[in-house]
């Protein structure tokens, strides 16, 4: 990992993995949103995503690598940074000079990670099991596509909906700081930076809110 031996290289790698996740979230949300108005479209889209070889065997491994890289690197950086101050201040007024979100990326990140574990257990593992262990690539159950029904079923329990809401609020905070931070890390700071910041803030609200709406919608309409 000699390319990642310098602090700046690690920061840039962190930013690149984050930008990749940011793009992924848009695609994921776009598919989820179709479930609000059409079970059919959602089924088609899910089936395409779940069976297209390019997505399954090229995009999916890259995505998994991106997520794992991002949070492993996040933890590594956090530990190193903690170690860079061996004696703590008796009084440290962090709020005077920086936002809560910027100082607690590891907390919002850890919550997102916990959510990802639930999310994988809920959707990803059963999918992989059905498709590649049981070998059922049809996406069918009782003669119909199963995706929409599975989705509705998952959002019945209140605890899961609550977990979704909490996780996405924290994702919003992660991105409130993270979006513009990724650009700064890559050396992008110029007259367009205020646009990046504004766009980042909109993204950090709209995308998590979209996911929350999908979860709430299916909780109350099934």
């Amino acid at each position, binding site marked *: 990992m000699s390319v990642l031996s*310098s*602090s*700046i*290289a*690690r*920061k*840039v790698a962190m930013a690149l993995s984050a930008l990749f996740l940011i793009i992924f979230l848009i695609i994921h949300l776009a598919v989820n949103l179709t479930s609000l108005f059409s079970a059919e479209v959602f089924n088609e889209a899910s089936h395409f995503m779940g069976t297209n070889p390019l997505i399954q065997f090229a995009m999916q491994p890259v995505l998994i690598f991106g997520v794992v890289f991002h949070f492993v690197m996040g933890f590594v*950086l956090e530990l*190193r*940074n903690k*170690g*860079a*101050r*061996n*004696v*703590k*201040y*008796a*009084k*440290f*007024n*962090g709020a*005077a*000079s*920086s*936002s809560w979100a*910027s*100082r607690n*990326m590891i907390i919002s990140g850890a919550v997102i990670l916990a959510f990802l574990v639930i999310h994988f257990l809920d959707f990803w593992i059963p999918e992989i099991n059905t498709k590649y262990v049981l070998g059922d690539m049809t996406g069918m159950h009782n003669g119909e596509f199963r995706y929409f029904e599975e989705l509705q079923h998952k959002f019945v329990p209140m605890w899961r909906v609550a977990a979704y809401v909490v996780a996405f609020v924290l994702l919003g905070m992660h991105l409130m*700081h993270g979006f*513009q*931070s990724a650009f*700064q*890390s*890559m*050396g*992008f*700071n*110029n007259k367009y930076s205020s646009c990046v910041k504004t766009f980042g803030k909109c993204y950090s609200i709209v995308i998590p809110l979209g996911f929350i709406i999908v979860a709430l919608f299916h909780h109350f309409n099934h």
Partner: protein
Amino acid sequence: MNLTLKIWRQKGPQEKGQMVEYKVTDISEHMSFLEMMDILNEGLVAKGEVPIAFDHDCREGICGMCSLHINGEPHGPDRGITTCQLHMRTFKDGDTIYIEPWRAKAFPVIKDLIVDRMAFERIQQAGGYISVNTSGNTQDANAIPIPKLDADLSMDAAACIGCGACVASCKNSSAMLFVSAKVSQFALLPQGKVEAADRVRNMVKQMDDEGFGNCTNTGACEVECPKGISLENIARMNREYLKASII
């Protein structure tokens, strides 16, 4: 006004330190913060106690020696000033004030409130200069045309006094603002471009070797910096570093 001070006392680099409480009375609001410290020390000396060691030199905000972490912020609660420019009118009668040294593994405490900032010196030695021939036929710097904006930005970066408040304020003890100011002041000028790639590589390597943390762009350094050094310098250093690594 009367104040309660909680001050870090530590006899030497290897000694264990602790916060010690002191009371000062009849402090004028017109006093500077360091004058208040002087009065406290005079009292300690009169009582036969060891005075509190703290760094200071010019006492007019230009040398970068003074370095107190006051009530949780480097150089105290005011913006754009050093500790020596801080006045007691910022505080109220009856206040409790925490006074601590800069905290970073790369800035070990020497005594009480004095920390060893040689790490900054070593980063400078790794590349914070330009190599010019001083044999008597040096080219006049004014003979080289430089766009006004570049000259201004370089001058802004050069305003850094190397105080270390950026490190002290950063939750990661990152020295990126300091190093980026030193990289930028040269990178922006034609004279600095010649050695730009080696400079940024070597200075960043030294910064990492000294044990400073990673920047997470919280922006605390920019807010606390007495000289208003901008985060744009960090982005510029990242660009310079990427350029130097790729080419």
